[in-house]
């Protein structure tokens, strides 16, 4: 948040951008209620929206009211176990936000497809920027908005399901964000209309697609057996929890980032775990041979059966027993097979929409698609990578959140360029912590320095750029380090010229914090 905004807030000024650089593109930030709605209604030839207000109060007291008014409201999807009071309902009626209960045709100013972290942050940012706009957040999972990243911690009972939920259950009501549990079946970009799986429609002015990604199932015989699951949704997590008990045999297919993240949770549940990876090492997209090798050794020492350079050829079931067949001829008994072989953006519903899709939805540096009033963000979008400048799907949480915020700011009429998200990961594998940042594999002609101490399970590799950036850190990977790690991000993203500190780091790469401080602060005189 800028100081400018902070000052504005101090003086109770609105957050609507007012200075020249933050030119409002959309001069039509809606006035509340009628104005924008009647506009929408005339602009589009949708059927006259049904006028129904349906508000459900606490399930506990079984009170529910249905009235007919000049607007529509929905709140049945928000966990209704909390303080919905008569007063707050009245407020809502007066706010006359737009949505309906089970009627067919909605309108909204901002529609967001996908209620994961990206969609939620976008909705909140939109609300902050546009205090009165109608915001509809659409999610197709039968849950409140939640964070997939929390699933491993749910699996070890570190948190309950509510611990995975994004925000408190009354948050969306308080923010006046309509949460709609629907599956968007198609987008009609000409009519600015979403068509839901049940035939309902939603007319929008601006649309954000934050539909995330889905696990891809490798084409293997038996992949559709009932006890073969991915570990992507809360629903998956419940199924895994019901089978992965102390002593049960679990085979994890894929030792990529997600596979390794759930590995720890599975071991902590006390299962007998085998992990099968096609590639020559674990987490090949985050670690080089040395770090990947150390991680594998560590896992094996902890009792995990790790098989790299190995393929599953088939999963077979007979007499209620599953057997996993490997290309080396071995067979593994399994009560549960978890498939974690990669994810793919959810773009199938955009076919014929005219929205351009490559690996993910293609966007410009404002996270805008080829259609002016449609934006895309998060796992589903092919956003800019900080290090390469290329547009690619990153599928990580910090990027999803950054995207959501920047897309929402642009949708609000601000000009905010996305300068690229840094690809970064942190992994805790049975207590061995690893990180990767940016161009961790290095760039041709760039210097690098490493510490490799296999006995202590320690690894650190710093990568520098070339030419005029020869003293700029461009990537790093670590194993067995936990202190001041974030400064690696700071050094890479701020492109600080380390000058003589590069030489110091080449001698002792652990001194990243000192390098940062010496390069950004005046150490010998007061400010």
């Amino acid at each position, binding site marked *: *948040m800028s100081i400018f905004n902070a000052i504005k807030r101090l003086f109770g000024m609105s957050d609507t951008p007012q200075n020249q650089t933050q030119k409002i593109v959309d001069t039509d930030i809606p006035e509340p209620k009628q104005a924008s709605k009647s506009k929408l209604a005339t602009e589009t030839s949708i059927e006259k929206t049904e006028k129904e207000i349906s508000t459900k109060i606490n399930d506990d007291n079984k009170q529910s009211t249905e009235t007919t008014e000049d607007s529509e409201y929905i709140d049945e999807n928000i966990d209704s176990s909390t303080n919905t009071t008569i007063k707050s309902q009245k407020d809502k009626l007066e706010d006359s936000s737009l949505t309906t209960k089970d009627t067919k045709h909605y309108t909204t100013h901002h529609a967001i497809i996908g209620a994961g972290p990206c969609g939620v942050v976008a909705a909140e940012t939109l609300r902050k920027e546009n205090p009165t706009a109608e915001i509809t957040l659409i999610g197709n999972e039968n849950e409140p908005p939640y964070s997939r990243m929390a699933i491993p911690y749910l699996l070890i009972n570190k948190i309950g399901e509510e611990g995975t939920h994004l925000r408190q259950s009354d948050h969306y009501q308080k923010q006046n964000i309509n949460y709609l549990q629907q599956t968007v079946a198609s987008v009609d970009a000409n009519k600015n209309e979403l068509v839901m799986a049940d035939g309902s429609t939603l007319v929008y002015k601006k649309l954000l697609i934050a539909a995330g990604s889905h696990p891809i199932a490798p084409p293997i015989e038996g992949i559709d057996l009932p006890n073969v699951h991915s570990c992507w949704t809360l629903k998956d997590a419940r199924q895994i929890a019901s089978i992965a008990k102390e002593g049960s045999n679990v085979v994890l297919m894929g030792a990529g980032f997600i596979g390794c993240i759930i590995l720890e949770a599975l071991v902590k549940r006390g299962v007998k775990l085998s992990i099968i990876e096609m590639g020559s090492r674990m987490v090949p997209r985050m670690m080089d041979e040395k770090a990947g090798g150390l991680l594998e050794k560590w896992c094996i020492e902890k009792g995990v059966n790790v098989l790299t350079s190995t393929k599953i050829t088939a999963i077979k079931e007979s007499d209620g027993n599953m057997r996993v067949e490997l290309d080396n001829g071995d067979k593994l008994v399994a009560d549960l097979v978890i498939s974690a072989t990669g994810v793919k953006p959810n773009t199938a519903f955009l076919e014929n929409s005219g929205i351009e899709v490559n690996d993910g939805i293609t966007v410009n540096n404002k996270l805008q698609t080829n259609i002016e009033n449609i934006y895309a963000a998060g796992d589903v979008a092919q956003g800019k990578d900080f290090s390469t400048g290329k547009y690619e799907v990153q599928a990580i949480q910090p990027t999803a959140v950054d995207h959501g915020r920047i897309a929402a700011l642009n949708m609000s009429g601000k000009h905010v360029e996305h300068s690229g998200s840094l690809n970064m990961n942190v992994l805790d594998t049975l207590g061995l*912590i690893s990180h990767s940042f940016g161009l961790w594999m290095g760039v041709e002609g760039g210097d690098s320095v490493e510490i490799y101490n296999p006995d202590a399970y320690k690894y650190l590799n710093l990568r520098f750029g070339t030419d005029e950036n020869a003293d700029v850190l461009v990537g790093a990977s670590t194993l067995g380090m936990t202190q001041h790690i*974030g400064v690696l*991000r*700071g050094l890479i993203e*701020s492109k600080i010229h380390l000058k003589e500190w590069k030489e110091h780091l080449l001698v002792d790469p652990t001194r990243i*914090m000192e390098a940062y*401080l010496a390069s950004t602060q005046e150490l010998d005189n007061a*400010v």
Partner: protein
Amino acid sequence: MQKSLHLDPAKCTGCLQCEMACSYEKLGEFNPSRSLIKVFSFHFEGRFAPYTCTQCDEAWCQRACPVDAITLDMSTGAKIVIEDKCVGCKVCTISCPFGTVNYVQQTGKVAKCDLCGGDPQCAKACPTDAITFIDANATGYDRMKAYAEKSLPSAEASA
């Protein structure tokens, strides 16, 4: 006006009183290795620099947390970790570009400076005024902090 920690490397003698005080306040024992403020030394120059969270406006850590475990303490402006909510995923530790949120293996959670609820013990303990707790505006420290934040491209989104 909210106060902030002002860190002045030029005045630091490297006595580590701040690390002692911090760990004592947080853990009830003198354990500098778990202090939330750290004194970095530059031996060849004979210099020291105390460093901890600047409670930056961007709050990268807070934004990155998947379970809302980092919140703003309205009274002090500090970004604080709610221990009960933190699942220890460490995403905040890679998100903070200043390296001031750290994972603590003993607790399975992260720790960062919370300004001791408005009475930072490190500032009290510092014998040379290298660490002071003062009006943020009075010193230009705020400008320096803002500058550091602005040098990061991911900050400009809130410009």
